[in-house]
């Protein structure tokens, strides 16, 4: 917002609707004081892809952890202190030189909150949900992740209770890196499967 502020942006229709529902629910005593701010802060600051990046970095650095992660994703993720709603049944799918995994939710917006946070807008919008199960090779290339034609693509539609996390391949040339440095290489999109670290 520029200095002055004499011409604030007009309040949109959707903002008026949100304000109306918020006011009515608050008047009925259903919105605890500070609740909206607290839940917003948690998803902006604490619950996000930095958690998943730690899981991936640990798996890259510690072969035994990786084994546990692939055998029981929920338990191995809990070892690092992460868990909660939309993370109770975690399955980790591993990329290898010939196999690329990618996750989608065609019916709504299912996503592993404890390790990736809330999904980005494009993940929930119709083009991604419609196209990823029909033309993943084309869509991945469009999104900046072209794959050789011989690479097998495994698409995971999160249609029941399991939530998926992609374990990307560890990039070459990272042998001397610490776990913290490795975590810095892991992007949200590489754990969705639309990018590679």
């Amino acid at each position: 917002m520029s200095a002055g502020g004499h011409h604030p942006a007009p309040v949109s229709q959707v903002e008026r609707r949100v304000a109306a529902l918020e006011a009515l629910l608050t008047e009925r005593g259903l919105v605890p004081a500070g609740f909206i701010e607290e839940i917003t802060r948690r998803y902006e600051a604490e619950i996000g892809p930095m958690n998943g990046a730690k899981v991936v970095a640990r798996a890259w650095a510690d072969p035994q952890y990786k084994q546990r992660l692939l055998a029981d994703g929920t338990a191995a993720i809990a070892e690092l202190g992460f868990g909660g709603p939309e993370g109770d049944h975690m399955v980790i799918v591993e990329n290898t030189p010939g196999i690329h995994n990618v996750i989608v939710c065609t019916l709504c917006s299912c996503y592993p909150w404890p390790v990736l946070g809330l999904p980005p807008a494009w993940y929930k919008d119709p083009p991604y949900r419609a196209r990823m199960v029909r033309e993943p090779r084309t869509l991945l290339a469009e999104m900046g992740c072209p794959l050789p034609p011989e690479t097998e693509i495994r698409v995971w539609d999160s249609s029941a209770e399991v939530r998926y996390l992609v374990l990307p391949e560890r990039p070459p040339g990272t042998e001397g890196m610490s776990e913290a440095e490795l975590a810095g290489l892991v992007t949200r999109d590489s754990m969705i499967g639309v990018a590679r670290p």
Partner: protein
Amino acid sequence: MDGIHDLGGRQGFGTVGYSPAEPVFHHRWEAVARALLVVVAGAVKASGGEFRHSIERMEPGHYLTSSYYEHWLTAAATLAVEHGLVTHSELEERAGGRFPLSGPVLAPPAVAAGPDVDTPRFGVGDRVRVREWHPPGHTRSPGYVRGKTGTVIRVDGIHSVPDIEAHGAARRREPTYSVRFDAADLWRDGQRGVWIHVDLWDSYLERS
């Protein structure tokens, strides 16, 4: 229901509006809408199925032209009205204009759920076909795999059947399976070397 939300494989959509760096919330109202859904779902004790179905019942044009947090707002308001926390006219009065809600539930209430199914009917490697059905209410059986045959690759324990929990207090738990489909079996123009995995409840499936 065969609603607009069932988007897998629909054609005509363009480029994904992709950005590698995106804020968690673009506007404060999105964060408020999300929190209000949590408030309402808690107050009315909505199951995951009932919540999802309240979005699926949105008018298709509204669904496709609104952001996902507007979907959550519409779901929160719809559930709040349906459970008597607020009225639709109160919402429109306060908002100073239209406040579109989702359409009515078309399925009858689920009263008799039957006993839990503890033992998986299928095992890893079994060939299964997805039942070709079109329930009037909520389901998590995506349209693009109905009638198609795939292979069970994982059995995931038992979970509440969404088709039942969305429509009342009754619950039945059943095994879910991850079923692998060859893209060539799903689409006339299926891409080579592509496997699509869909997680499906026991009652959605029959032996192939």
